[in-house]
């Protein structure tokens, strides 16, 4: 398409506008299908982005954290903790190791055991918080040495419970990518079908225009502009509506929400305007194509 065509599409063409009937079922369908598909596309994109954020958080937040759990008779615990600390600090691949204070341990357990628990009477293991370097220590030999030098010490790098979660998050992300792709494709197809059926309903308009001397370009312009703008308006409405619904969902926007809410953040916002424009783009090309096809039916 030429630059002049684009300019006319945006600024409008007083002569061509209005030659195409604005009302009717099929005309409504273009706007409605574009709005509905935009709604679904925005929902799918936001779910996908939320899954990505979730996976990201799980993989970074716990990636370099580990704990050493030390149990045994309470009289020996302090000695075992300092032995373990000493050993850890001497191990390459460990950035820092710090024993949790009694207050911190208590805070960790209170939600599970309730207030007013006689802590000293319980055989509570002591915890050491370990930060690994990016490469990490040689965990197998570290475990062996710990077992030899500090009885009752267990090194836990969280991988056991983290791995299935990461797999789940990765799967969710894949699912979201597939869903977004399908929804966007479906949106394009729906808008195309609606535009084509609307055009078919307008075949007599095309014939009449042709017979009174309208050129192909004029007829094409009239239809393409009408349908593109209608799809764009529908797409905008669907996008805005979807965002409103997502913002209204409980938990959205709360920092500690399970998946930090479904509303887009940062780069995610940039994807939102793409949705109505994809609908408009689909309408533009399908109308162009269908108008050309319809014109070929008449001389």
């Amino acid at each position, binding site marked *: 398409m030429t630059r002049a065509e684009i300019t006319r599409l945006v600024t409008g063409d007083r002569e061509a506008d209005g030659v195409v009937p604005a009302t009717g079922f099929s005309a409504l369908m273009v706007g409605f299908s574009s709005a509905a598909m935009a709604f679904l596309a925005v929902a799918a994109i936001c779910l996908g982005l939320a899954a990505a954020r979730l996976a990201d958080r799980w993989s970074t937040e716990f990636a370099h954290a580990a704990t050493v759990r030390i149990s045994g008779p309470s009289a020996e615990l302090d000695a075992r903790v300092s032995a373990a600390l000493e050993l850890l600090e001497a191990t390459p691949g460990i950035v820092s190791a710090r024993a949790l204070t009694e207050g911190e341990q208590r805070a960790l357990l209170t939600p599970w055991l309730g207030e007013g628990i006689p802590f000293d009477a319980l055989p509570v293991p002591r915890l050491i918080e370990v930060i690994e370097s990016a490469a990490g220590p040689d965990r197998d030999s570290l475990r062996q040495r710990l077992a030899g030098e500090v009885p009752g010490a267990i090194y836990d790098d969280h991988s056991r419970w983290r791995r299935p979660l990461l797999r789940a998050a990765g799967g969710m992300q894949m699912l979201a990518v597939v869903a977004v792709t399908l929804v966007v494709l479906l949106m394009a197809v729906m808008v195309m079908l609606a535009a084509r059926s609307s055009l078919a309903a307008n075949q007599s308009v095309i014939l009449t*225009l042709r017979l*009174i*001397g309208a050129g192909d370009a004029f007829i094409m312009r009239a239809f393409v502009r009408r349908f593109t703008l209608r799809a764009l308006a529908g797409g905008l409405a669907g996008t805005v509506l979807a965002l409103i619904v997502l913002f209204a969902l409980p938990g959205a926007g709360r920092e500690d929400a399970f998946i930090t809410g479904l509303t887009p953040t940062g780069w995610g916002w940039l994807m939102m305007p793409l949705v109505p424009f994809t609908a408009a783009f689909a309408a533009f090309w399908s109308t162009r194509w269908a108008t050309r096809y319809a014109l070929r039916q008449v*001389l």
Partner: protein
Amino acid sequence: MISFQKAGFSYGIGPILEGIDLSLAPGSFHFLTGPSGSGKTTFLKLCYLALRPSEGRMLAFGAPVEELDREGITRARRRIGIVHQDCQFLDHLTLVENVGLPLRVLGRPEESYVDDLADLLSWVGLEERGEALPPELSGGERQRAALARAVIGSPDLVLADEPTGNLDWEMGQRILRLLIELNRLGKTILVATHDLNLIRAAKSQVEARVLRISRGRILTAGAAL
């Protein structure tokens, strides 16, 4: 304007028209008559290039039609005003808008032809009905509006398919006078009709040639009709 040499046409089954050898000279006035289903509308469609002859040659404004591309057809159509048998308006546009449509599709701004529009509407006696939608008009009003739309672009050739079909005798005479007036202004006119009384009435006012379709052939009718 338009001429045929040994031209024929068929929708695919049997031939509708064959061996057409005639030309519409500039400024001439023709009637085309024949029984219903004989091919009058088909012949007009050939003339306004909605159909192409399936055999023989046809020239439109000097150009062989088989050489005209879509742009060429568009240009030729702008020199032809058509009054369709079923009128063919855009039902969502008002009467004025419909009548102005041939100029609008040329990209002419409405201000440049509002006066012509008003003159034309009063010429066909529809100055009061300008804001009506086509479905709200009577058959006769629609046919007069169709004539107005056919001539607003000042075409060289006016093709009218049963332009008086829905009209009483008085209104039919009025349309006929409008067509004769156009012919005096130099336009070439071709009117398809099965109304022999209309043809007789016209022959007293204008020098008109009468063509008759008989079994697929177009013949020139004698003085007796």
